[in-house]
């Protein structure tokens, strides 16, 4: 779908004046500052900013892991409600996450089988036919180029970083959420495995029509993978639009700087033009 088509697709997740203030004794810190956004069904969105700009705080609010200080989140056009455990569970059926550090997101005492079984239980219920269950697991592993037979009876810590990332995508394949939120999912792995993971995510989006929210500081990656890019500085969105518009014709000074800081191969990378204002 083109960018214009995606902007007309049904709304999936929106925010109005969303804000998070951390209060620590007398000091308060506004990590996310009155942001507005509209994410559509099937859209790949990147939220780009430097470390400390508020990306992870925003993603935790979107996931319902962190209370919102003020403002509203809308899920499929209606105000999101996650007061009760039942509401929370229903919401989490629709949104799933992949995190920065793959190792932190698994229970290390759970074998890989159990990790995948949990996903199947969540999506299809406990009483699914045994053969069907095995088929689903095999299919999920082969989707991410892992061999299911080699994984059974292993623990997550016995996998390499790259295998771990792929297992995480296999989980998403089984859960088929409407929204996938990925916070720097490829920052721990090398460029070569990164290409594999990105292509798997795009393939999954094409097959399931899910919305993918990518949180990253890598503007080259954001340009490659996303339809829409939001640029975040000090908790605010300073610019947003189609990937081509924002990255090739940036308007905000901050976006221009982010782009000029990335090493290029066809254009000159001017090392003398460095920003040292923060220090």
């Amino acid at each position, binding site marked *: 779908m083109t960018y214009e*088509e995606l902007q007309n697709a049904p709304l999936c997740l929106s925010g109005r004046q969303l804000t998070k203030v951390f209060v620590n004794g007398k000091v308060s810190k506004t990590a996310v500052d009155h942001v507005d956004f509209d994410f559509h069904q099937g859209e790949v969105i990147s939220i780009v900013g430097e*470390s400390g700009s508020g990306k992870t705080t925003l993603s935790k609010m979107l996931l319902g892991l962190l209370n919102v200080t003020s403002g509203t989140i809308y899920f499929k056009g209606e105000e999101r409600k996650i007061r009760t455990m039942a509401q929370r569970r229903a919401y989490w059926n629709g949104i799933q996450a992949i995190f920065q550090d793959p190792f932190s997101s698994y229970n290390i005492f759970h074998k890989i089988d159990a990790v995948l079984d949990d996903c199947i239980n969540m999506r299809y219920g406990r009483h699914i036919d045994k053969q069907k269950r095995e088929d689903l697991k095999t299919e999920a592993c082969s989707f991410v180029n892992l061999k299911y037979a080699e994984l059974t009876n292993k623990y997550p810590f016995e996998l390499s970083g790259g295998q771990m990332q792929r297992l995480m995508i296999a989980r998403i394949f089984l859960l088929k959420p409407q929204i996938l939120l990925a916070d720097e999912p490829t920052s721990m792995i090398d460029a070569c495995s990164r290409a594999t993971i990105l292509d798997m995510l795009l393939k999954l989006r094409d097959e399931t029509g899910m919305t993918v929210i990518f949180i990253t*500081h890598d503007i*080259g990656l954001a340009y*490659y993978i996303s339809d829409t890019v939001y640029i975040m500085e000090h908790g605010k969105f300073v610019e947003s639009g189609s990937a081509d518009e924002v990255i090739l014709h940036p308007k905000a000074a901050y976006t221009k700087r982010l782009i000029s800081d990335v090493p290029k*191969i066809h254009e000159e990378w001017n090392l003398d033009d460095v920003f040292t204002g923060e220090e």
Partner: protein
Amino acid sequence: MSNVLLEVNQLTTKYITRFREDVYAVDHVSLSLEAGKSIGIAGESGCGKSTLALSLMGYYFAPLHYQSGDIIIDGKNISGMKPDDVRRNILGREIAYIPQAAMNALNPTCKIRKFIRDVMHAHYPKMRDDEIDRMAEDRFRELNLPVDSLDLHAVELSGGMKQRVVIAVSTILKPKVLIADEPSSALDVSSQKVVIRMLRDMMNAGLIGSMIFITHELPLLYNVTDDIMVMYAGQIVEKGTAAEMVFDPIHPYSRGLMRSILVPEEGTRNIKLTAIPGTPPNLKKPPQGCRFYDRCRYRQPQCQYNAVPIADIEGNRQYRCQLSVDQLRELYTAEDAEAERKQAEDTVLQKFLKDTGMNSAKEENRDDI
């Protein structure tokens, strides 16, 4: 006459694991580095980049063992030296090393000043503290680092600042060779640029004689180093100038790596990345033939059985493949032409759909919802 600071011939080193299995993580690696030059080492996780760095420094502590080959630093062969001798007499002065994630190794509650004194005392036990402090302050000024940061604790510094401090301290003795292992990968783009600029300025000012820079970020290597070496499963598979390696890779694996590059430049969005399928071989039992065989899309039957030596080609380039350079280039040209044809076909199809209104029909339907 060229001034070679580091010469490595057929270096082979191995890890001896608990189960007495040998892992040859550096297998017959040769390279040579002249004064004022830098070389980049690229390759995927686990290919042996960090092990090569440790091996070059003569840092042989169990489970890493030296097997064979020479390491000659400015005319002095250190390959037979005892690790303790190396630590005392070579490290820091002849060759310095910034390990992966070095900045996280700084003791968070220790003042930077104290850290520098400890480092210096390891080399010069009798050096006075005020002498060390003066040296440190001079160096910080030279590198535009705030001198006040000497009295801060590591936790009080930003990631980028910590990394610059680590680099300033590790190179305080003006080493002939600096080995930097992923010095900026944990930083965001702006701090990364500051670190890279500092390294460049240090090279220009002669504070470091030459540099080996390890990273899997190819656009970074392209901008930082003169030459690039690509490593795969413990071996060098190709070496050339940075421009040759990025724009005209010869080895199938290098070609794959160069196609995983992501840069925010016009046109790059439309070119599909071509991920290399599969995973690298187990180094406990490396395949007898070409190590890339399992994953190579150009492989021939003989590749599986015959070990492939590294060969010199035009210029200063080297590569390791059974196919000739001409054969490989021909394959690549055909492949690129095919990709271009497909892309053109797609564009025509899209235009057709648009012109015949098939796209807008879909759009109208959606508006109804």
